[in-house]
């Protein structure tokens, strides 16, 4: 996959690029409006990560341009402003998703995967990981073809694990993915144990032991 990261904060831009460069992805970066505009005209990307507040112009203007050229790429908007108006404007202009700073890179990654799934594979809504199969339309999970019953949160958790396979996920990251703004409500993440343990039990019962503990209190989904 080819990504363009249009973000004027160099540090953030580099972190995103490093994080996403796994899995044989190519990440290109643009630090201002003109650079981003130029690159978008010259090259094709699968995903564009667009900061709304670029120093020399608005990311929303770039988005308008992009849609005018009818390029087939997914667009995820990043903004420091959590106001709903901004969000709606971005989505109205044709952005595929919207994420507010500060965000977790694993969260960004899972949003990118979701956009790619919707955009590229059309009718194919299945995700496979070893013997696990997820149907993202029906929101159901199968191990070796056998359906397993998961709660809403367990399904979301499994999907999040698979899209971020091989990466270390801390409880803060998982909590925010599963509960969004509501994860602020309680300040300790112990409640996550319950959900992860339940999911782990259900998978292990079917022989799929992929949820591993990393560094004592983090989690990693990985094939041995």
């Amino acid at each position, binding site marked *: 996959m080819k990504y363009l990261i249009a973000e004027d904060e160099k*540090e*953030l831009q580099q972190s995103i690029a490093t994080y996403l460069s796994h899995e044989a992805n190519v990440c290109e970066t643009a630090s201002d409006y003109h650079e981003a505009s130029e690159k978008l005209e010259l090259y094709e990307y699968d995903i564009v990560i667009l900061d709304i507040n670029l120093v020399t112009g608005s990311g929303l203007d770039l988005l308008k341009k992009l849609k005018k050229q009818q390029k087939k790429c997914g667009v995820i908007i990043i903004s420091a402003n959590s106001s709903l108006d901004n969000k709606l404007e971005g989505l109205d202009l044709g952005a595929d998703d919207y994420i507010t700073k500060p965000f977790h890179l694993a969260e960004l990654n899972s949003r990118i995967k979701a956009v790619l799934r919707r955009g590229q594979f059309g009718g194919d809504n299945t995700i496979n990981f070893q013997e696990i199969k997820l149907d993202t339309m029906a929101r159901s999970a199968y191990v070796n073809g056998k359906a397993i019953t998961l709660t809403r949160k367990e399904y979301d958790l499994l999907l999040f694990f698979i899209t971020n396979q091989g990466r270390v996920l801390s409880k803060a*990251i998982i909590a925010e993915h599963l*509960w969004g703004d*509501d994860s602020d409500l309680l*300040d300790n993440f112990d*409640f996550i144990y319950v959900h992860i343990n339940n999911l782990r039990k259900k998978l292990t019962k079917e022989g799929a032991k992929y949820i591993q503990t990393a*560094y004592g*209190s983090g989690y990693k989904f990985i094939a041995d």
Partner: protein
Amino acid sequence: MQNISKRPTEVVINSSQIKNSNPNKTKLLRKASKTFLITSIVIMILSGIALYIYTRYLLQNEIEEELYSNKDRVERLLKNNPDLVGIPPIMMAEKTEISEENVLIDTLIFDPLQDEVELFRQLSGTRNINGQEYKITVRAMVIESEDILSAIVLTFLSIIFLAFIFLFYLNKSRNEKLWQPFFVNLERLKSFTLKSDKPLDLNDSDIVEFDELNKQMLALTSKVQADYRNLKQFTEDVSHEMQTPLAIMQAKIETLFDQQNINEKQYEQLSSLQFDIQRLKQLNNRLILLAKIDNNQFTADENISINETLKQSIDNFTEITQTRIALNGKDEITAIMDKALASILFNNLLTNAIKHNFGNQPISVVIEKNHVQVINAGTDGLSNPEYIFDRFYKESKKPDSTGLGLSIVKKICDFYGFLPSYRFHESSKKHIFQIEFDT
């Protein structure tokens, strides 16, 4: 974590909350009228008394003068006519042996003409005329002069009374007109709110002092307004400016996680950093939320069911807490408000109850009549319950609270005119937070 007590963070802007130094307040116009009335009554009484005394003195003088001159006349008549008797009872002369000094007295004499006893002023004395002592007595009716006296005083009093009444009403209407711009501007000042962007609009006045007052008020309010706006803007700007550095920190921690060369201890420290960033982010979000409510950015008001919203909030909590929450909906409440704000309101109340719950007792939520109560167990009542809804006020020593949750509750309640309150139920050791919705 410091306990910021003795510090009301919100400026008192409600005039009813300002302490009254003197509870006996009189209206300006009434006070002016009262002063006028008292002064005029005093003047009326004093001048009436003075007029009475002076006129009486004059009239008495007049009578006495007349008595003396009448006596004189009788004496002269006696010189030519020694047998003169006079006209009783007004003038009388009789021969006598004893000589007397002139004496002035009041005396009562029966007047056969009017068939009643009348008061007379009498002058009597002896006089030697042609070698014979005569006692001469002259009298004058006092009634006449008393009548004149009361007529004069009464006329005076009624004229001055009428004049005062006329002046009183003239003065009153004049005062009303004179102070009119003052009262109009006072009303405008009362309805002035800091939160509105509109400057204070005062009526012009041709009175120098009122004009000066207006100018001072305008200068003061626009300064306060500007300061308030700047403060609000500052909070918002800081909150927004913090997002990007926080994003960078968060991203860097994750890229570190991703590298294989960190050990368990480093991971612990990094994830604890992640937790702190989370707290900053939470603080930020809440400050932005407060600013948004201030800026009237929640306009999607609809008629929502409080019971339904509470039920959803409680359902969400069952996924993230072990604490049991019991909902007891005795009555149905609906309110016109923004749906997002309604969930924020209840989420904050429930979060507060869960965080400060004592033991593993269940939290109970009661919907009754027009109020919602969130009740959690505690050990003691709060030491400063009056600050509980203030920004950054923390009663507990728990390090993980932002001190903003309940002030958000208050802000939302203020925005919609609901009434939040707190009390501690001693016998059952329960903290009770209550929101009263309008009926």
